[in-house]
């Protein structure tokens, strides 16, 4: 029982971060109608950026996180128009071409990381450490609690931004209907690029958090793309609210499988579940709009 509670706690702490990771992905799908295969790539590059900030500038990852987010938001702002261009182009299948584009970006990121930094894992150490917090039989590592809190704060910020600002109103309007929002005076191409910037910045920031807990190597991208897809599909593509539940669910499932079945089976189970969910209910289990 104690083991179960511990697994549950670990799962919730990681799940919160995974939920935050998927929010940007969902925003991008909602506004641009693009499934970004490169989502794991942004996580990975964010982790490397955190590593550089630590080794070159001596910045603790929790301090460099906003910096990393801003830098990657700028990169996303530059890349966004390209993706919008392909998605709204006159190609025969713009959705598939956009998917292929992000697939290419992802291969580029992963290949570039392998080429520059090889397979070695890099640890991003932080000053936040210390004895785990004991809650009855459950031990909560301080680092994970802080990372969870940071992810929760980021998610909350995105939600406030979406539901309490004029920009957020425009984002939700475009997600509902691109044409009508455009007629109401929203600059759709510009807004799409901005949403993509929010997404890349947020995702890279989460990458820093994940790099402090696990380490970062060029192959983690595939893993986080899988996680983002899983959470997004379970929540229903484009649904931002659903990811909170789906993210926690994924964290708990992964943690339970790793403890009770074996860690080498966790990817098998998650990929299998993703496949099954897609077949049974492609609209997602927790379908709710933006």
């Amino acid at each position, binding site marked *: 029982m104690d083991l179960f509670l511990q697994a549950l706690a670990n799962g919730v702490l990681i799940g919160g971060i995974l939920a935050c990771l998927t929010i940007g992905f969902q925003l991008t799908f909602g506004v641009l109608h693009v*499934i970004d295969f490169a989502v794991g790539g942004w996580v990975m590059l964010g982790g490397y950026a955190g590593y550089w900030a630590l080794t070159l500038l001596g910045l603790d990852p929790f301090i460099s996180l906003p910096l990393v987010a801003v830098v990657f938001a700028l990169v996303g702002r530059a890349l966004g128009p*390209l993706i919008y*261009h*392909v998605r709204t*182009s006159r*190609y*025969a*299948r713009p*959705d*598939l*071409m*956009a*998917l*292929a*584009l992000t*697939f*290419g*970006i*992802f*291969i*580029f*990121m*992963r*290949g*570039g990381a*392998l*080429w520059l930094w*090889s397979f070695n894992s890099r640890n991003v150490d932080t000053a936040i450490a210390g004895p785990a917090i004991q809650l009855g039989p459950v031990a909560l590592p301080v680092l994970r609690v802080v990372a969870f809190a940071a992810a929760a704060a980021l998610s909350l910020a995105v939600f406030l931004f979406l539901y309490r600002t004029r920009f957020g109103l425009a984002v939700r309007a475009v997600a509902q209907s691109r044409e009508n929002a455009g007629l109401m005076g929203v600059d759709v191409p510009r807004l799409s690029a901005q949403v993509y910037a929010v997404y890349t910045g947020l995702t890279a920031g989460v990458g820093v958090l994940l790099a402090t807990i696990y380490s970062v190597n060029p192959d983690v991208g*595939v893993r986080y793309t*899988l996680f983002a*897809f899983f959470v997004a*599909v379970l929540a229903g593509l484009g649904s931002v609210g659903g990811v909170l539940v789906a993210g926690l669910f994924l964290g708990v499932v992964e943690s339970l499988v790793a403890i009770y079945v074996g860690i*080498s*089976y966790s*990817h*098998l189970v998650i*990929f*299998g579940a*993703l*496949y099954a969910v*897609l*077949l049974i209910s*492609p609209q997602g289990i927790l379908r709710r709009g933006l």
Partner: protein
Amino acid sequence: MGLTRWLAGVIVVAVLAALPLGLDAYSLRIATGVCMWAGLACAWNIVGGYAGYISFGHSAFFGIGAYATALLMQRGMDWPFFATLPVGLVVAAGVAAVIGAPTMRLRGSYFAIATWAFAEMLLQLVNVLDVTGGPGGLSVPPYLNEHFFYYLMLAAAVIAYLAVWVLVERSRFGFRLRALRDHEPAAEALGIRTTLVKVQAFALSAGIAAVFGGIYAYWVTFIDPMSVMGGEITDQMVVMVLLGGLGTVWGPALGASLLWLTNRMVWSALGDTAIYLPILGVIIVAVVLFLPNGLVSLLPGLGQLRRRGHRLLTGMVRKL
């Protein structure tokens, strides 16, 4: 019209068949690789190009073929090599038919994610099973004859392209496929059984990929999960077809030759292929942005050239 095409095809095949005469062993291996990738790209193109369903899971079928051959040739089973290829083909086509029926109801990006999840799932499964040797992989009884493998790969590739030419490019089946790619509800309204057609195309594509997997396993004599089921195999197929031209007969061969030669040149120049992956990425991005119809679309003069050649040829035939 048909005459010129056949003649051009025969000339290309004759040149390829004569190639080993002028190549050293290393270059011959590269040529074998070109044939293999051309065949794999051709297989992927049936689903990705003609049917318009982007599969990110074709490495699974290549891997099924490779593992079928390797497992059946293990000590104790001792199957002859050529008997293992049909097994791989049938198993892969069967798996494709079984998973195709539900998976191909998903459209566009959903299908891409689902096939990706399926392939990664199979990769993980092969990794944890005992019978496949887990991460340690399997050895196949070695047969070191580069000429044999070159001709085998070439023959398989020629058969694959002929199959696509006969079954897809010039048949009712092919028209149905392209109809559902261009507008699926309309195709359905015309009375095309879209699910059946899609599953047939998927099974055909999977079977071809599996045959190449089987030959590959015998050729390299050692396989492990990453080398025959890794995502990079799918990546290459996708890029080769995109570069050459989606839904064209010769585009995949063109893309495959160019990319595989690049891969090998990078390898021999730098000693590893790490830089090759970012190059692949850049190529995809560039093709999507600037050349959505692939390299084949750069040859608008080809039709004219062919017509002129045809006139010349028929003129000569008439004189004789």
